[in-house]
């Protein structure tokens, strides 16, 4: 079971209070984009074994979206950060680097 902290309201709870929203930081390709880009945007996901960045929603709480960094294999949660961020904060990335040296080369 995952224990997550909502970045919007600060509540720490287990995952049933939240709703998973899939991979984070996808670039949207809409009308006018190529079929390849649109397919990529709609269907292709990283699905790594290890460090992963996801969107979550505090569905049974404050209702807000936020981001979570976690390990898909060990379920270790590295931290949460704002839904408005386009990329994980540096401070979080270095914490992950401490826990999983060299993880960036995984995918």
């Amino acid at each position: 079971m995952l224990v997550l902290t909502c970045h919007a309201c600060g509540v720490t709870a287990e995952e049933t209070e939240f709703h998973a929203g899939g991979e984070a930081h996808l670039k949207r390709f809409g009308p006018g984009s190529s079929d390849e880009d649109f397919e990529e945007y709609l269907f292709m996901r990283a699905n790594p074994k290890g460090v992963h960045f996801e969107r979550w929603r505090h569905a049974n709480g404050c209702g807000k979206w936020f981001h979570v960094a976690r390990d898909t294999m060990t379920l270790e949660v590295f931290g949460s950060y704002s839904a408005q961020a386009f990329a994980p904060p540096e401070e979080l990335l270095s914490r992950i680097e401490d826990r999983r040296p060299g993880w960036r080369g995984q995918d």
Partner: protein
Amino acid sequence: MSEPVSALKNISDLNGIAAIREIGPLGMITLRGDLSDRAVQDAAKTAGGANAPDQRKINAEGDGGVAWMSPDELLILCRYDEVPLRMTNLQAGLSKGHALAANVSDARAVFEVSGPRAREVLAKLAPVDLTPGQFEPGMMRRTRLAQVPAAFWMTDAETFRIVCFRSVAQYVFDLLKIAAQPGSEVDFF
């Protein structure tokens, strides 16, 4: 004017390990806006009779108060018959900025769970740490009770107030009744 009735006509169950009562109808106004805006804070204070609370807190006294619901949402509590006046005051106080006040009193049901084992009853239903010291009067928690969203706070050391959607009032009452059924003490707290 029609007579307002609560969802379950103030049903109660006093036979279990905690007393369960449906109370209300209670006045509830959702206020959304920039909570750092003085106009929003002042309007909330006027309408709720208490200062806008800090994150995840509630300032309540009797049936009145203000609860923090999310980074851009407060819940104003008052007597049911005072809602029209409070709404008028809110609209006046918020006319210059971007904010929303909505009367949600009839969309909600309110329950009170009380007694020395009230914590146990809630802890069976919500994924919340209800250990004394972790959850205390003055705190507001939005969460779920089994399968439906709910919010609760404590009015004293042994009393919880729970709000849920009116459409699931019977479900929540049944949940509480089962969680409090005689002989179901856990003795955890």
